[in-house]
């Protein structure tokens, strides 16, 4: 079952309220997206842990409703 990008963004922001989220569709089929997520929660933790936070926010939809979610995660730049 496809998901709307707004729904993905909302679920990520519910779990990571400070997050900036940009979703783009890789293919227009509702289940291949790219998500770029910037949040303080990612600072100082490994990429695996950063992605696990996003997967947890999406509550089991990745790998299910979302066949593919290309993820780019980073803490905010401290400039």
């Amino acid at each position, binding site marked *: 079952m496809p998901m709307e990008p707004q729904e993905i963004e909302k679920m990520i922001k519910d779990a990571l309220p400070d997050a900036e989220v940009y979703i783009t569709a890789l293919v227009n089929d509702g289940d291949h997206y790219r998500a770029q997520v910037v949040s303080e929660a990612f600072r100082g933790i490994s990429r*695996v842990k950063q*992605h*696990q936070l996003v997967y947890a926010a999406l509550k*089991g939809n*990745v790998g*299910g409703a979302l066949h*593919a979610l290309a*993820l*780019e995660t980073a803490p905010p730049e401290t400039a």
Partner: protein
Amino acid sequence: MSDNQALDRIKQDVESNDVVLFMKGTPNFPQCGFSGQVAKILSHLEVPYKGVNVLEDMEIREGVKAFSNWPTIPQLYIKGEFVGGCDIVREMFASGELATAFKTAGVPVKDAAQA
């Protein structure tokens, strides 16, 4: 019971092989673009690895997701440690970190990883 058996087999695979890629399809015939990308990176680095085709075994396919708390395939392991899926492996390859990780683990890797 069968769940635990699957987890035991996964554990044994990642502990008895330096580099293991759980993937859809085989290194020569990947059945998914994301698995194919990681296989291509490993062959580019000329890293010897064991490919496990999760499409052949539903218990391994589901088990490996629980094993690493990671919802998708492919999954790359170096020396028993989960490194990441397609996005992370690609990022690490592009930055040269992946070659470094193999070297650190004592896995033979082709130099000139930095294209």
